[in-house]
């Protein structure tokens, strides 16, 4: 399975970037659609499913800025981070299906995965717990003299957790190279922002740590990309962390079993018009970065790649029960 499209050398850089963004956003969308709308309903997915539909610009726009030494700590709606770091779609499907081929070999499910070979730390369920861990990762990078940055992802709701505060504060005091990336999709499960925090923006929390905080249109992948470049440049230059708040909307229920009746009428429609994939495609057409035919071809290629990935995952075996007690410790 290839994970990146060929990029023409003579194309203008924006066009090439747009193409990569489109590819990863489309891959994420298609993978999650298959998981949520097909495999989940077929009973092939083992546990819960949380997708990032409509929020793909955030993992894509940010992770494409990351350099090889950077370390990613994605949250549960950041599937594209895995793709961008070179994890194959097949392994992701296998993960969701509880198969040996998944990143956790069936020990954990869905987005609870990571692989240090790809520079990805797996989340745990407890929200924001990766935030102090990101600080520790950044400390280690600096300690070892590696010019890397930790990318720490979380939702709006996660910022209410004590761990979030402790992690951001510690990173700020230590001036650690961390980019804090908030997916502010305006809901945390059924809880709207106003019941989560009294301030209007997550970025309003930057001054509490004396770190720069920027708000970006989270449905505009190129804007996210550009802001992330600023953020990474800041964090990577010894000035300490940078907080990037990406405003977006959760275009689904919290998980596959949540119909989101609590979301006021009209919001899905309104935000649907700002779909990051549609918007990018329109921009590409308008700027002349691509023609409709190329877009169609790209979409078909994504479908084919995902078909193959699903097939690969389905032939991956379930883990052997005999391995149950292995790997709790280095050696028993």
């Amino acid at each position: 399975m290839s994970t990146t499209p060929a990029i023409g050398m003579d194309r203008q850089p924006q066009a090439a970037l747009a193409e990569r963004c489109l590819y990863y956003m489309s891959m994420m969308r298609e993978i999650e659609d298959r998981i949520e709308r097909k495999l989940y309903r077929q009973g092939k997915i083992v546990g819960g499913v949380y997708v990032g539909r409509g929020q793909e610009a955030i993992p894509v726009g940010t992770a494409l800025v990351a350099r090889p030494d950077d370390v990613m700590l994605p949250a549960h709606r950041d599937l594209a981070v895995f793709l961008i770091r070179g994890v194959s779609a097949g392994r992701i499907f296998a993960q969701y299906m509880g198969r040996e081929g998944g990143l956790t070999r069936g020990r954990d499910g869905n987005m609870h995965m990571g692989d240090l070979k790809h520079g990805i730390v797996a989340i745990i369920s407890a929200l924001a717990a990766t935030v102090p861990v990101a600080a520790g990762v950044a400390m280690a990078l600096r300690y070892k003299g590696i010019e890397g940055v930790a990318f720490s992802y979380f939702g709006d709701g996660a910022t209410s957790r004590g761990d979030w505060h402790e992690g951001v504060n510690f990173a700020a005091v230590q001036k650690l190279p961390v980019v804090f990336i908030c997916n502010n999709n305006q809901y945390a499960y059924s809880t709207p922002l106003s019941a989560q925090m009294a301030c209007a923006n997550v970025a309003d929390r930057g001054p509490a740590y004396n770190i720069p905080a920027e708000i970006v249109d989270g449905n505009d992948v190129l804007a996210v990309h550009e802001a992330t470049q600023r953020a990474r440049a800041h964090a990577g230059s010894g000035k300490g962390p940078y907080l990037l708040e990406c405003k977006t909307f959760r275009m689904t229920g919290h998980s596959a079993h949540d119909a989101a009746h609590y979301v006021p009428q009209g919001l899905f429609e309104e935000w649907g018009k700002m779909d990051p994939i549609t918007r990018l495609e329109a921009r590409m057409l308008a700027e002349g970065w691509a023609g409709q035919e190329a877009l169609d071809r790209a979409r078909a290629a994504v479908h084919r790649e995902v078909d193959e990935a699903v097939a690969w995952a389905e032939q991956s075996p379930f883990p052997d029960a005999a391995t149950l007690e292995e790997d709790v410790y280095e050696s028993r």
Partner: protein
Amino acid sequence: MSTTYLEAIRQGMWEEMERDPNVFLLGEDIGVYGGAFKVTAGFFEHFGEKRVVDTPISEAAIVGAAIGAGLMGLRPVAEMQFADFITCGFDQIVNFAAKCRYRWGAAVPMVVRAPSGGGIHGGPFHSQNPEMWFVRTPGLKVVAPATAYDAKGLIKSAIRDNDPVIFFEHKGLYRRIKEDLPAEDYTVPIGVAKVAREGRDLSIITYGAMVWTALEAAGKLAEEGASVEVVDLRTLVPLDRETVCASVKKTSKALLLHEDTRTGGMAGELAATLTEAVFEYLDGPIVRVTAPDTPVPYSPPLEQAFLPNVEKVVEKARWLWRY
């Protein structure tokens, strides 16, 4: 009209809220949404936002606020969305709530509801049975009902109790078990175990979802001629050592069963209790059937191997019976 375990908890809370205006609920997504498992569905509409408080994602604040409200004489019932997240409010429970009465005579009437247990493909963070963190902490009461009757009776007792109670409700039982409940108000006392099945040859001592496993195993063993008693602890703290010891005095053999992992599990406390108190009555080793010492795995073949089940219980019990 049969009532599920989940509905029993719902009813218990509802009735207590009707009975006592000081009872109120707080937690994540328990209001408009009715809770992740819909245990509080309809409460917000009926009791209003004053008594059904949706909170930010802040387990320490949820428990801390419950403590503060409890100190002031209210009777908060705090929901952890999953028992696994109770670790995020841990200090508040084990250091604040548990020690107030002893330190300065202040009552903290508070219930922390913790949906626990595996078998639902929840993986390492939505399946744990963390009761022992609290059983070992003096000052807390710990409850883990197995039946709809007990779930309702115990949630009501927990709400009326003047000490902090950690209420473990097994997610796997929510919609799986049902029974007819009395129409009238009743409670089940905290601290009293129940003999769920009488027997002469061997005692299985257990609690929570494993009570059903034990009963099924006892049924199978009966076909082989073994008369198995099943003791449902219902409450882990205060532990009803009398009922446990009385059963083993009678049968002389004890199999300790829990879904929680082995090392440091409740079976240890039971084993120590038994060898201390009824050593002379024992006609065989005390054996344990528990989950192994691993995180709860996600994939079905692993989770199945992880969880104790009827076969494992029957096998061990048979061995002990023949011992």
